[in-house]
């Protein structure tokens, strides 16, 4: 499969507000939310990105789309470095790169009819005139299961449930027939009973559009269900990357092992090695020296505390950043 998206050494740092004293001394601190991650996504592939809250998943997704300006690295989308595009070029390429946000209550303007919200991107990009855009929006509403679509077209977001709003957000992203979509915890804020049907919807669009997807989630079970390959993030870094099944059923990195242990629905095999981490996630302003997990990892040795491990291919297509792997 040809690569749709390649991310190389992507970094996004946020400046931290400091006290007067530090700012007088000229000290600057940064949250290294994403600190040099690399991965690629094939055409039609769903690539999972998992990790605990605050590890930088959302920032990674926003950086790829330049909704936040990355500090460094490259994002090659269909041969073009997105980070080098000018304002107008970037605006035009957005037609092909879309995002579905985690919070469907905040991602739709409360004062815009949902039909118009879906039709607007088509008008912006000159794909359709007003009438055609309305037709397409109606078709998309039907497609995502909001029927009778004529009636839904004129509703406002506050007349819909969270699940229905997320369907609108999906319809809005998909109306443009994008090649690539970031789905940021697209089902985590939705009622459990609706999750499966929304995942199914995403799966359908992937099939019909040969869509590539960066599927961000903290739920390993969901990743296992939908993602072809998955990367595990910890404190702004990718610690393990490989085929989803293999990665979750036979994790190599201690962090992945601990993550899988903590997800009861996955742990079916009793013989699996149990890993418990000590303490809490350190903050991303001052990550530990060497391996970022070294202060919590039960297997940590001297080298772990001094030298940062590189992501190495330990089996074919399975990458791990651990000195002990």
């Amino acid at each position: 499969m040809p690569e749709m998206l390649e991310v190389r050494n992507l970094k996004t740092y946020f400046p931290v507000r400091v006290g007067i004293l530090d700012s007088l001394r000229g000290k600057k601190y940064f949250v290294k939310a994403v600190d040099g991650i690399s991965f690629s996504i094939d055409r039609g592939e769903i690539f999972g990105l998992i990790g605990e809250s605050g590890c930088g998943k959302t920032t990674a997704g926003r950086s790829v789309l330049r909704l936040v300006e990355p500090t460094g690295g490259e994002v090659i989308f269909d041969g073009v470095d997105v980070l080098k595009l000018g304002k107008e070029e970037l605006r035009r390429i957005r037609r092909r790169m879309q995002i579905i946000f985690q919070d469907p209550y905040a991602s739709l303007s409360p004062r815009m009819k949902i039909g118009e919200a879906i039709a607007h991107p088509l008008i912006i990009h000159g794909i359709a005139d007003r009438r055609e855009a309305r037709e397409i929006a109606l078709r998309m509403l039907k497609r995502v299961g909001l029927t009778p679509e004529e009636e839904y077209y004129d509703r406002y977001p506050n007349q819909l449930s969270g699940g229905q709003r997320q369907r609108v957000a999906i319809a809005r992203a998909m109306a443009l027939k994008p090649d690539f979509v970031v789905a940021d915890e697209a089902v985590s804020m939705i009622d459990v009973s609706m999750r499966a049907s929304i995942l199914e919807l995403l799966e359908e669009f992937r099939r019909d559009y040969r869509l590539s997807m960066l599927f961000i989630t903290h739920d390993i079970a969901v990743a296992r269900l939908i993602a072809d390959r998955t990367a595990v993030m910890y404190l702004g870094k990718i610690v393990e990357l490989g085929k989803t099944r293999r990665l979750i059923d036979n994790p190599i990195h201690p962090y992945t092992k601990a993550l899988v242990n903590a997800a009861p629905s996955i742990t079916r095999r009793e013989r699996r090695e149990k890993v418990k981490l000590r303490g809490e996630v350190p903050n991303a302003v001052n990550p530990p020296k060497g391996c970022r997990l070294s202060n919590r990892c039960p297997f940590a040795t001297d080298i772990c505390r001094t030298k940062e491990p590189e992501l190495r291919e330990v089996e074919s297509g399975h990458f791990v950043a651990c000195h002990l792997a």
Partner: protein
Amino acid sequence: MLSSIILKPVKAIFGNRPGRGFLIAGTIIVLAVVIMAIFAPFIAPYNPTAISSDTFSPPCWKHIMGTNRLGQDVFSRIVWGSRIILYVVLVATAFSMVLGIPVGLVSGYYGGKLDRVLSTVMDSIYAFPALILAIVIAVVLGPSPMNAAVAIAFVYVPTYFRMIRGQTLSLKGQLFVEAAKAIGARDREIMLKYILPNLIPTILVVFSLSVADAILTEAGLSFLGLSVTPPTPDWGYDLRVGQAFFLDGYWWLVFFPGLMIMLLAMAFALIGEALSERTSTSAR
């Protein structure tokens, strides 16, 4: 703001929860004055500028609000006078909105140097007492209703600017604005289609409150002879002429124009207060 002086005792009577009652009462008063202005020729029993020998008549069946020193019917002057005050205040407010809203929106949206310069300028205008600033401008421009409108408009631009800029600043950080960026909307489209519609509740509130205030400012200007030229009927002007005779016992010359100014200002303040209550409770 000036209008809060009027609103305080009203709140004391109604309690502190402005709601439907405020909105309905305010709307009725405003509509009554608007109807008065539109149908003035049919409502006013006399020509408002016609002089007669029946001077200083107290309220009676022939002249329900009495007559003034020239024998003009006070009620007829009140009815016709509503035209001037509504005209000046609405023209002025339209001016301030046309200037204050787009400038506040652009300033808040883009931020940066332009925003800092604009904010400083607007804040320094805002720091002046409204009436004094309006008086200075009106004096410079010369007395006429149009000039009074321009003076008032200038005074209220910063009110719109500050509210709109502040709201834009907070809306700009909302996820749906990021979503608009993500679908490839241009800055202009983001401002007009995503931010502006969400500003409408704010605009309505600022509109009602600033109109309430502008009414008092207009009355103040014409009280000082900076708006209409006699014998044009005008509430503020009539109030000024009337107060010279107040101590002689001709209370109706002051009472009726004063009452109308208070009522109209209060009506807009009530509407504004009720609207702001609604928009702040309906926000999630």
